[in-house]
């Protein structure tokens, strides 16, 4: 019987604050990668960055097993945001989305531009100057306003200017998708199970097509893979007071275990293992409703001759928007579930037929 799983350390909250307040939009994840690399520099493990920018940590098994289980854990470094495309004069710039963002979400928002977090605003006309029937804006309608003297160039990334905030059991921040997965992975490295050959991947370009995880899984060739992510909770009642039947996940109901999403059917053995682990420890958990969305597991499980994979996510409201909301208890339960599941993972699990 493995020991009781630990809880998240106070350092995890400090890292989450730091990581959610950097600009690290898909394709330019360097600021987040640098923070993670600095945080892991004391780990007795090899850290490498591959050609796409994925940060990989390998911690060999500390057991005498002839062939320890090779386990890949992946969390993505990138976040959704904007790319500045071309100047429109007087400190104004056109922008295009990177990842799943709507123009309506960006309207009237303060943003940070580039690694220096230069301030800017995607402005909206005041209501008394709007004419005609209101309509949702398109990206062509929007202009980023950084002022005439701010050094901004086309190609730079920007994202919402949202400071991290914690109120008791609730965290409000941008980019919880997937900085909460990144910090969970950092915590799992700190408490790594000694019997597995552990590969931790901080992947890039997940928000634009799961690109980083694809090459990572090919290179590592693991026996099993876990994607650690953050998934939308759409659990607010509608105008009629009824819960949306497609709520995906709910806050306060624990980690979300994936059975199927748009890109993946999770390996049933890993799903059963996670469920059994949660029930054995009395940890809350929920099954994420099957349907849309995808995680790095979607790319990983199809590499080489097939890699049994599963995703576990922290539920959060308001993802892909200026600010998301999650519960500390859900995050802690997610970490504890993954910790316990990894410590209980053995090759015998994979000897069952899927």
């Amino acid at each position: 019987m493995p020991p009781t799983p630990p809880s998240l350390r106070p350092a995890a909250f400090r890292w989450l604050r730091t990581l959610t307040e950097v600009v690290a939009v898909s394709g330019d994840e360097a600021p987040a990668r640098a923070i993670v690399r600095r945080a892991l520099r004391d780990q007795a493990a090899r850290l490498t960055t591959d050609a796409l920018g994925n940060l990989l940590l390998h911690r060999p098994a500390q057991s005498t097993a002839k062939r320890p289980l090779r386990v890949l854990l992946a969390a993505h470094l990138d976040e959704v945001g904007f790319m500045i495309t071309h100047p429109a004069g007087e400190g104004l710039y056109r922008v295009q989305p990177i990842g799943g963002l709507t123009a309506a979400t960006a309207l009237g928002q303060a943003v940070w531009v580039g690694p220096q977090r230069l301030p800017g605003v995607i402005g909206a006309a005041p209501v008394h100057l709007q004419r005609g029937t209101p309509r949702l804006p398109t990206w062509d309608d929007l202009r980023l306003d950084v002022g005439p003297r701010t050094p901004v160039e086309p190609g730079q990334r920007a994202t919402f200017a949202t400071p991290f905030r914690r109120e008791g059991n609730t965290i409000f921040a941008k980019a919880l998708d997937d900085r909460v997965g990144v910090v969970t992975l950092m915590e799992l490295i700190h408490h790594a199970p000694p019997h597995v050959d552990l590969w931790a991947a901080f992947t890039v370009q997940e928000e634009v097509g799961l690109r980083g995880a694809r090459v990572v899984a090919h290179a590592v060739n693991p026996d099993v893979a876990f994607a650690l992510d953050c998934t939308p909770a759409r659990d607010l009642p509608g105008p009629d007071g009824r819960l949306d039947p497609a709520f995906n996940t709910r806050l306060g109901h624990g980690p979300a275990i994936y059975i199927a999403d748009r890109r993946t059917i999770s390996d049933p053995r890993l799903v059963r293992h996670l469920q059994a682990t949660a029930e054995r420890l009395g940890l809350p958990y929920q099954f994420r409703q099957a349907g849309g969305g995808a995680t790095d597991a979607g790319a990983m499980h199809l590499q080489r001759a097939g890699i049994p994979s599963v995703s576990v996510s922290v539920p959060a409201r308001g993802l892909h928007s200026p600010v998301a909301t999650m519960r500390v208890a859900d995050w802690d339960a997610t970490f504890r579930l993954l910790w316990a599941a990894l410590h209980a993972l053995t090759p015998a699990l994979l000897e069952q037929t899927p």
Partner: protein
Amino acid sequence: MNTPDLAFLLSELSRVDAPSGHEGPLRDWLQAHLPPHTTARVDGLGNLIVLPIGTQAVEVLVVAPLDEVGFLAQPGPRAGWVRLAPLGPAALPGAAAARVRFVDGTRGVLTRDPTVAKAQGWDAWLCDVAPASVPVGQPAVWDTEPIVQAGRVLGKAVGVRAALLATFHALQHAQPRRPTGWVFAAREQVSGHGSAPAAFGLRPRYALRVVPTPARDEPGRRIPGVRMAQGPGLRRREWGRAADARLVAWLARVAREARLAVQDEIPQEREPSWASLPFVAAGLPTATISIPTRNLYAAHQAVALDDVQTAAHWLQAALEAEGDPLA
């Protein structure tokens, strides 16, 4: 394979439940019926890979789908009711209620949610399992008893099972000229997930697929396509790309020389298992034999036994034909 045998087998296989990702029962059936000169293994995704005993490397890969479209139970509004999420492109039921069968044996009846004003895909349907209950994530399939009628089999999943049976017949009877591996691919209904990783592990020179395809022969269809009971189809293209021209020409020649009635197919719909196989490793030339199926993905599908038989003979002839199709 005579017609009564085929009708019996197709009905038997229609009764086996194998929604995507949960193909175990069908895999077990196949393993129990494998010819003695073969060896089989199940890979990490659930593909059943069959090789002649002693095979070191394969040149030809034959692929057929193992799975069928299905559903997963989702939380419902109260005890005894669940919602369903489709696994693969399961067709929405029509006006009448339809039945589903969960893998634990529980039956459910679909009914429209009266509180959802407009059609909203599967969210607008409730599944009545009362007084039983099913856990969230429990897989299900259409609950339809197969019927044999006038040379056709009607039932759930008969399209994919027809493709599987044609392939299985060739596995049992063909004497391929080249080392051949057989993949009964899991998760094919959800974007062709199974066959590509299996092919990566086997490294063949080329692949032949057998799949069901929507028959487009209803009265009044503006753009007709393949017709049921007119022979299996030879796909000239897949969605968004051409089939390998050398393999297509070779399959056409084999059919001509064997005097088999086949038809050309240019699919109009996007089929789930369209994407990945030709892009394995450094590229895998691929061609597809299709079996016309009416109401593909619905609770009541229909295939013509003659089409299945011809597809089996065509595949067998292709594997036994002289010459290198890629030359």
